[in-house]
């Protein structure tokens, strides 16, 4: 057997554990979910098998689901934009600082290693009526009454931004780090100011990283349910909460399956669009 025949076979050997694992543990189970979405839940909580379109009809026609899905996409979008706007300069700073790149990136990962629930609940101690920020403002005399800052859409977004910021920064960092600084110098030398250089050279060239980070933030934000539970007010539910409630609280797995497939379809479509324009390879690159 020639070297090339071997080279053609080897990648499949190498890929097989991952593909087998993902097929067995993700795609086959998703097949179950697909089947389940056509079943029906009875009053006692048991499910009847069959081919019923009721769940899909409900999921697709009820305004309630559509509105919350749209609201979820809105929150995910805002989160993504905030991450991008806040994270970009930081990523740029890290990429362009000569020393400590590795250390700065590592620091960024630190909050990940405090349990997610605890981390999210900590905002209550920061933003609460008797939290740090209010105490500080009161002490400085800027306010007389503690401000009610918690439990609204803004705090949900805040929690999500905190969770997702590192993903954005990492992606943008890789992109900016890969831009030849001579390009900026060249633009400068041609008469562009720093701001003009940024807008006409740096920003467009880092778009792939920004897009990869954005996709990751968006997808992960659209799939969260704990953050809105902990930091949201009564109305701040997201689509994953609906899935969670259908499956866990109402034990309505058929409906939950239909709902989750709906979310999956929307996110999947987004990935396909992204893939078409920027390619998964960039997402890969972005994580380095």
């Amino acid at each position, binding site marked *: 057997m020639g070297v090339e025949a071997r080279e053609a076979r080897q990648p499949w050997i190498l890929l097989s554990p991952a593909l087998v694992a993902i097929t067995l543990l993700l795609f086959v189970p998703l097949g179950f979910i697909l089947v389940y979405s056509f079943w029906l839940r009875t009053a006692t909580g048991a499910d009847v098998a069959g081919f019923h379109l009721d769940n899909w009809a409900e999921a697709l026609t009820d305004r309630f689901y559509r509105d919350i899905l749209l609201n979820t996409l809105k929150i995910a979008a805002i989160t993504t934009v905030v991450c991008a706007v806040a994270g970009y300069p930081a990523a740029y700073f890290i990429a362009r600082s000569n020393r400590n790149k590795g250390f700065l990136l590592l620091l960024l990962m630190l909050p990940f290693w405090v349990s997610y629930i605890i981390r999210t609940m900590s905002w209550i101690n920061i933003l609460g009526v008797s939290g740090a920020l209010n105490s500080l403002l009161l002490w400085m005399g800027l306010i007389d009454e503690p401000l009610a800052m918690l439990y609204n859409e803004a705090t949900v977004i805040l929690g999500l931004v905190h969770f997702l910021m590192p993903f954005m920064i990492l992606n943008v960092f890789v992109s900016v780090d890969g831009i030849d600084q001579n390009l900026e110098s060249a633009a400068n030398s041609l008469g562009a100011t720093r701001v003009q250089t940024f807008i006409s050279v740096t920003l467009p060239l880092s778009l792939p990283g920004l897009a990869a980070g954005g996709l990751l933030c968006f997808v992960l934000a659209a799939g969260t349910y704990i953050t809105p*539970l*902990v930091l949201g007010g009564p*109305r701040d539910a997201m689509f994953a909460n609906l899935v969670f409630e259908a499956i866990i609280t*109402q034990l309505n797995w058929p409906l939950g399956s239909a709902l989750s497939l709906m979310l999956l379809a929307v996110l999947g479509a987004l990935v396909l669009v992204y893939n078409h324009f920027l390619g998964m390879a960039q997402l890969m690159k972005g994580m380095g």
Partner: protein
Amino acid sequence: RTPFVREARAAASEVRFDGWGGVVSEAFREYAFDPYTEKTGVKVVDGTFGGGDEYLSRVKASQPGGYNIAHLSGVFDYARYAGLGLASELNEDNIPNLKYVIPKLVDVFRPITGGKISCVPYDYGTTGLAFNRKHISEDEMKEKGAKILLDETYKGKIAGWSDWRTRIWYASLQTGQDPNNATDMDAIWEAIRTHRDLSLKYWTSGAELMSLLAEEEIYVTEGWSGRIYALQEQGHDIGYMDPPNGFGWQECLFVLKGSPMPECEELLNFMLAPETSIAVAEGQNYPPALDPQKVDLGKKIPTLPAFDPTGTLAGLTFADPEYWNGHEAEWSKEFGRIQKGY
């Protein structure tokens, strides 16, 4: 059958118990599991859950026999499990300690499972009204009762549990209806909407309830008696009041179908032993299901809210399982929507 399969009957060398974590499971381990294993040689594998609904979904997605005993929330969960065909049949003769239990607590289960029982009652409590005494006086509470949760003056300082039963129960009280037999659901939904719009937040756990009150994010909410007691113990100036027809409930130790019955029954007996019950009760601040007339419950338990020294529990209103479970699918979904602003 694949070699991975572990037969339920063959697993009698261990019994699986699931319950609440923290102090509760510590107490169980010390007072029930370890002595039980020492005596019988049967291991107790204990797990925890964060909520009953989550546990039920796990059970539903598992093999029969995968789970054995669970510390569940009272009567309607019992009915739900029975409805899903998960109820077992206990041989009461194997649980001599059952005799210490308040009979009223046991009797509510019998009609659901045709006279037999699949669980033993373990503790009880109430979901009453908790309020910050700095901002709301006892008198005002007495005067307004459940309606305090709809009081415009406390807008943004009100909270509530995100549980649909509790919401409907309190809405029944607020609309002057019988919580176990409401007739005007529209009024109830309207009350729930009003409450939602006044609320800062729906809490989902005891930890959240306590921190909301302790940090004065809110002044009034319903609350679990044991949690409020814990806050008072820590010195917070929080009041607790069961309004008329306040929400009483009990918790039980439920044995799932497919479990090794003799071992489970023996374990239940251990857990019902007064010292175990009392330790757990003191840990979570809910009175045990033991009849104070038959057992000496020590010093702390009589001070717990909802405690009934008579052992008749005449002052508490419990939920009617048939009524609640009959509407579960419909109401939980409807509440889900209202909760989200619809």
